[in-house]
């Protein structure tokens, strides 16, 4: 008879199995406590190509006819969008310079076909149309695109790199439907955009032109999102700090816990100069240090995070030790750090000075906010993590 042995053996097996199950169940219970993500958004800027000085690794000779005509870095910008969508971002804030623009979207020299086709107005609208076509699939597959005006949209280079009211009007004509279609927003994101403020708030900062849909804000849950036009007509390279202060104050009073601000120009220029060379000259809001300080004080006061572009490079920094400036201006435009610069390291180690890059932000139920910057090299290598920080609130 084998029963006594078999029974004992069976009991041991059952006991061991029960122990193993208990361990497994404990592990499952622990996994269930993971802090869930309540909202994910991504942000990037500067995808426009340059007809005169494209990046050294993508010389005009190798640019497609498509990119020469519509002045986009289609390859990089498309790939960035692919991964952003794979990351299931509900919102995509594009921090300006989506078009080359930089002319005057005003009256044409004459009404002849040749003059109309050759006009800046036509160029603006053509380039806007191509960019809108590139982001249209995102809008159809779960990512609402939120545009931020950049200097190439609102300024004219031939007119002294000054913002022009014609260009502000062209912005509204080409982007206004996105700012903000609350019904479409709800359909795409799944939650409402509330406290939408897209009106003309120019008076807060004594601006002379209509700033509706150029600087604007809205809430999603307990997160507040504000977009600032960093080149308003008459006050180029100046963020509307007066309006922003009022806007963030209102948001805080109604219970907002997270403050995210998006603009084109950095408050603090990132110096990417090679070792031993003079630092990169100020090219952001810091060309007006007093106004910049007013703006940054607002950012610091509300523990906001400022996302920007303009410099075609990646950098994350805490200029005053607290609030983060997240510079994600390498969305396809020619890199500021030139090929072969000493500041640009080589190999697979993220070459952040010459890396197409963006940030994806996850807001968790606990209130923690994870900012993860991703990128791929100028030679289109694998997508890597460039930097990760967690903001605890």
């Amino acid at each position, binding site marked *: 008879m084998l029963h006594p042995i078999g029974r004992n053996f069976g009991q041991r097996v059952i006991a061991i199995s029960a122990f193993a199950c208990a361990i497994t169940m404990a592990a499952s219970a622990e996994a269930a406590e993971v802090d869930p993500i309540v909202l994910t958004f991504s942000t990037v800027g500067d995808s426009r190509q340059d007809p005169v000085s494209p990046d050294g690794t993508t010389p005009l000779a190798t640019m497609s006819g498509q990119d020469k005509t519509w002045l986009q870095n289609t390859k990089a910008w498309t790939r960035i969008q*692919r991964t952003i*969508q794979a990351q299931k971002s509900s919102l995509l804030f594009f921090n300006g310079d989506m078009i080359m623009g930089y002319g005057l979207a005003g009256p044409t020299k004459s009404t002849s076909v040749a003059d109309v086709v050759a006009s800046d107005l036509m160029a603006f609208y053509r380039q806007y149309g191509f960019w809108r076509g590139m982001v249209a699939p995102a809008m159809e597959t*779960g990512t609402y695109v939120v545009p931020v005006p950049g200097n190439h949209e609102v300024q004219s280079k031939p007119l002294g790199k000054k913002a022009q009211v014609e260009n502000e009007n062209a912005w509204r004509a080409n982007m206004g439907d996105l700012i903000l279609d609350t019904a479409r927003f709800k359909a795409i994101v799944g939650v409402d955009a509330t406290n939408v403020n897209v009106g003309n708030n120019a008076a807060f900062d004594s601006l002379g032109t209509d700033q509706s849909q150029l600087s604007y804000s809205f809430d999603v849950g307990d997160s507040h999102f504000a977009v600032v036009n960093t080149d308003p007509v008459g006050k180029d390279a100046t963020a509307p700090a007066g309006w922003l202060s009022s806007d963030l104050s209102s948001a805080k009073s109604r219970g907002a816990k997270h403050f995210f601000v998006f603009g084109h120009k950095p408050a603090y220029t990132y110096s990417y100069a090679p070792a031993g060379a003079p630092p990169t000259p100020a090219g952001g809001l810091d060309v007006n240090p007093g106004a910049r300080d007013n703006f940054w004080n607002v950012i610091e006061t509300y523990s906001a995070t400022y996302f920007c572009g303009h410099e075609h490079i990646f950098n994350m920094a805490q200029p005053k030790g607290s609030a983060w400036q997240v510079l994600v201006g390498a969305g396809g435009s020619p890199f500021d750090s030139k090929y072969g610069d000493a500041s640009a390291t080589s*190999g697979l180690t993220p070459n952040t000075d010459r890396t197409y890059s963006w940030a994806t932000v996850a807001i968790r139920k606990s209130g923690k906010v994870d900012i993860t910057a991703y990128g791929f090299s100028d030679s289109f*290598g694998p*997508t*890597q993590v460039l930097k990760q920080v967690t903001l605890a609130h």
Partner: protein
Amino acid sequence: MYPRQNNMLRKLTVALAASVLAASAASAATLIDTGTPDGSQAGFAVDVTDFVAVQFNAPSAWRLDDIGAYLVAGNPGDHFAVSLYRDASGLPGDLIASAQVSFVADGWNHISSLAWQLPAAGSYWLALEGTMVESVPGLPVPDGSFIAPAGGLTMPGTTAFSDGSYMGYQLQAGIQFGLEVIGAVPEPASISLMLLGVALVGVVSVRARSRRA
């Protein structure tokens, strides 16, 4: 039953159990163990656009039973895929097998009971890939995105990535991701030992029955 027979049966049963354990312990083996990432190198994105793969050599025909991947930044319940490819001129070639793995938590996430067969010794590829899910029929959407931390890992071979473009997998040295693969390889000596134990138990049992009769 006589006490002496009982003792004999106990010993034989223990011997049989030991031989079974010896056989299984001898055949189950680790084919790939990169170690656990230390974070000293930037991690890599893994999602429906971004795949990473590593080449490895199987010394003989193998069966892959358990694959673990070290991933973070996912949501519990999201999925990634582990895929096994033949080597084709130094890149992942024909797909041999693929399985979805449920992401549980940051760290090692395993799938077991695969029983994937490597038909012969040679070069193969294992890949971590993103997956799609159809919550609404006909509307597949990404089923998770992850980060594969890197640093301090020993990869078994050259590496490759895919960025979701028409180019497919592309070689890229230096990619790291945490990978553990446990499998089995047939070992005739262990199997013979186990069969011998079974035969002995059978003989003793028959003799005991005939004595009782």
